């Protein structure tokens, strides 16, 4: 029997779901991904066509984090100022508005 922290199974299940979702997106990449980087970060951006529409897949190869934004998400970015990004950057590697925890059954 291996020891486990409480909640590790939930994290593992979430990681699997995220991996599968990511794979489905990557399989539908159109064209060549674009990499942009500066001395603080490197990011890969790809145009993904789902069955019914387009998303922009944004990946951080170093951390493995990713997000797929639809056109309205992206338009919402155009309404922002640097202040929004400062607030996001202020808490690295965690969302500004955490989603309620999901149980494995959900």
């Amino acid at each position, binding site marked *: 029997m291996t020891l486990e922290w409480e909640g590790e199974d939930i994290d593992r299940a979430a990681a699997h779901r995220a991996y599968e979702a990511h794979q489905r997106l990557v399989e539908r990449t159109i064209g060549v991904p674009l990499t942009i980087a*500066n*001395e*603080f*970060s490197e990011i890969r951006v790809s145009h993904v066509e789902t069955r019914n529409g387009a998303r922009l897949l944004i990946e951080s190869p170093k951390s493995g984090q990713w997000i797929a934004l639809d056109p309205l998400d992206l338009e919402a970015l155009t309404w922002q100022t*640097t202040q929004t*990004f*400062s*607030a996001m*950057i*202020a*808490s*690295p*590697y965690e969302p500004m508005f955490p989603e309620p925890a999901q149980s494995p059954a959900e």
Partner: protein
Amino acid sequence: MTTSPTIYDEVRNGMLPAHIYNDAEIFERERRNLFSRAWLFVGHVSEIPQPGDYVVRKVLDDSFIVVRDEKGEIRAHFNMCLHRGMQVCRAEMGNASHFRCPYHGWSYRNDGRIVGLPFHQEAYGGEEGFSRKGARLLPAPNLDTYNGLIFISMDPDAPPLKEYLGDFTFFLDYYTKQSAAGIELRGPQRWRVNANWKIGAENFAGDMYHTPQTHTSVVEIGLFREPKAEKRKDGNTYWAGNGGGTTYKLPPGTLEERLRYVGYPDDMIERMKQTWSQEQLDVIGENGFMISAASVFPNMSLVHNWPKVEDGDDVLPFISLRTWVPISECETEVYSWFAVAADAPEEFKELSYKAYLMCFGSTGMFEQDDVENWVSLTNTAKGAMARRLLLNSRMGMLKDGSPVVEPLGDDEWAGPGVAHVGYGEYNQRHLLERWVDYVEADAPEPQRPIGLGGVRLTPSAAAAAAAGDCATGDSCDAGTAAGDGAVDTEGVTA
């Protein structure tokens, strides 16, 4: 009882104790009294044209992030994280809206304000323990620009830059404002030479005398139209405000003919006529002088020359800016930029860049010639005998201090300051007299350190802290940020 003259008295007399070119004690005084107070050139706004563009520049041991923030303001942040002192930016140039320290991930907006500390709540108790309000990368104590040239000073009480430059701005315009569009820079190339920083600054300020000897080969291979390097002695050396330089005499002709003679195309000449004052135009058109090398005290130099860039007799001018950044008493880091009018024709820009590379920069022929001398001087200045030798820097001056040739009169020189035709070491003396003014006098102690985001001791609380009972409350005051240190550039568009 008479006291013997100090090295500073000797320098003021035009006789230079040779060891000033390689002396650790003197270098320490330069660091403490000169580079802590003077205005120092660190870059140009054309190097950071877009919001988020930054370059990292050194002032002796201090690294600064020179950046255009999201609002378009030019700033210089001390490149040291407020937390454990890691260098926040390690790339020499880049573009970023935020900087993130590699050590613990503290992050800053490009205007210097801190935005994030990982685990702020858990590790510091949030704002209660580390107040982010007002906490920012330390700004350079002073920052200002002239024609887009960015200068910083480590002295918060330094006089305004324009006042510091004084009448030298008249000449700075020839190099940095040939039209309303200003200049754009390429570079810098950076390299180190085993030479004292003052030698290059003096050389560019006024040494026309070395050209026939040191740079013979450059003339011999036909890089210039003038058949003899001695042509230099027909030019003048001028000193105005906080800088001085050398000029070439031009053949007889009108303003336009003379500007064409050095290789400027007509459209650039037209813009010069619209941009420069009547006096600036008269120095060329009436007096017949064209600016060449120059230095701004202490360690910025400029050069303007017009070699042949292709077979034939046509010449083409180039402009170069540089700084002599001291590493030690016997080593200097040279930053060398190519500069050109931003609205010059593309073909002119390319040929001008070629002209610069042929003459200056790490591949330049002049550069190789010069540095050989400077390294030798520096090495020789280190020994015991150099402490017994006063170098003669009195060229152009008789025993009683009167000039060998009278300065140019108002009808011969439309520029400010004092100009003498022919060989002389007036400018080297001016430069070193200013050096004495700074180095001889002890600068005031640097201001108290600034602590940001945490808790600062008042002097009375320091004693209590030493006794081990400083906590929070009345005895400690919160650190306050220094001024935010931004400048608006003079209408320079990104």
